């Protein structure tokens, strides 16, 4: 049974599908997709995104710049939206997080919507990502009092930290998934906070069939919850106001 909080620290939750390159994709898809989801996401906007893609080549890491058009379809309150790009569908929820019971139907709506307008051959990647901003005391404190996931400092190292960023990628031998967890100091210099970023993703293209995608999402969500709960202590958990 998952825990629920009155004040969850989530500032953005994203579920993203990247479909395989052999999936047909053309300019008519955004319009057709909009017809499928416009009752939930009626507000259309468009942006050109510059993306950087890194690939391992024979001479080291190579990077490529791509410009691609993205369609943003917002809910009326703009607290959730769908991002549609070439062979990409992402569903975003902002604070206040509407619980998994509120987020999952939006994912299902978008995924079913895209499958109704395009024949998705296979999935290259699925990602379920939760970005949390956690307020902390302004005075000196010990990270281990609040987190089960924090940088370890041996006793012969200085113990006072100004800022930090730590990333761990967990592997799951029994499934084709990985989970990248990053804990770092918050960007706002005026506020004492940390950002806990949990990105659970399908690391093996084609590792999940299109028909299994929503089942994968449910399992991914359970893993993300387990990681989140493992990353925090009861002391921090209590500040979120657990709902019994």
């Amino acid at each position: 049974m998952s825990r629920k909080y009155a004040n969850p620290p989530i500032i953005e939750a994203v579920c993203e599908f990247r479909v395989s390159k052999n999936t047909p994709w053309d300019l008519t898809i955004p319009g057709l997709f909009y017809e499928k989801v416009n009752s939930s996401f009626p507000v259309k906007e468009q942006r050109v995104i510059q993306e950087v893609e890194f690939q391992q080549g024979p001479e080291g890491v190579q990077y490529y710049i791509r410009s691609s058009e993205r369609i943003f379809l917002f809910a009326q309150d703009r607290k959730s939206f769908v991002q549609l790009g070439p062979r990409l569908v992402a569903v975003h929820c902002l604070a206040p997080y509407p619980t998994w019971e509120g987020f999952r139907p939006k994912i299902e709506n978008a995924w079913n919507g895209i499958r109704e307008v395009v024949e998705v051959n296979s999935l290259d990647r699925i990602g379920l990502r939760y970005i949390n901003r956690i307020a902390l005391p302004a005075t000196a404190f010990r990270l281990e009092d609040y987190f089960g996931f924090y940088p370890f400092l041996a006793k012969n190292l200085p113990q006072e930290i100004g800022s930090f960023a730590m990333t761990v990628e967990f592997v799951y031998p029994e499934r084709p998934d990985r989970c990248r967890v990053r804990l770092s100091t918050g960007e706002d210099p005026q506020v004492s906070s940390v950002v806990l970023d949990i990105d659970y993703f399908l690391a093996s293209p084609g590792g999940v069939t299109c028909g299994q995608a929503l089942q994968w999402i449910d399992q991914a969500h359970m893993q993300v919850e387990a990681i989140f709960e493992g990353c925090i202590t009861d002391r921090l958990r209590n500040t979120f106001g657990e709902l019994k």
Partner: protein
Amino acid sequence: MAFNYPFLDLRNSLAGSAIASRPPSIRLRALVADAWMETENPKRQHQATTSVREEVSAFLGALGDLKVIVRSWEEVESYFLRFPGLVDIVELAVQAVQKHIQDAQMILDHYRDPEIDDEYLVLCVRASEYDESFLKRLAAAEAEFLEHLNRQQGWLQLTTDFGNPTDAL
């Protein structure tokens, strides 16, 4: 650990592309720097799941290098998350202000009207001198992005409080 800043190569890779006519955007440069650090380990080849917050955060962080102070960070970030198209507009606005008011110090803030349900971003420009041409130059800067802003949801107000730029620091 050696770290080679990638932007010179980045400019070369842009040559001939559709976006070669303009330099990489502020947020792209920030994302490249982050991503480059992250991918120095060749085992780390997996893309991240798309996040608008990540883009916004990188953009806000990069604004510091352009003499823009971000006030009410969380409110500004939250507004950008709901109106992500404004990232492009604020970038245009900052560049326009720098073009017309060379020594400008800028403050990006979020304003919420306490009486009506209205909120928007404010880019407040301060200069070391406020001569007769200042307001004209401010208007000229605004003219460079206003048309784009009118096509977007959300709002950015360019203004000045005639303050001392060093007071903002």
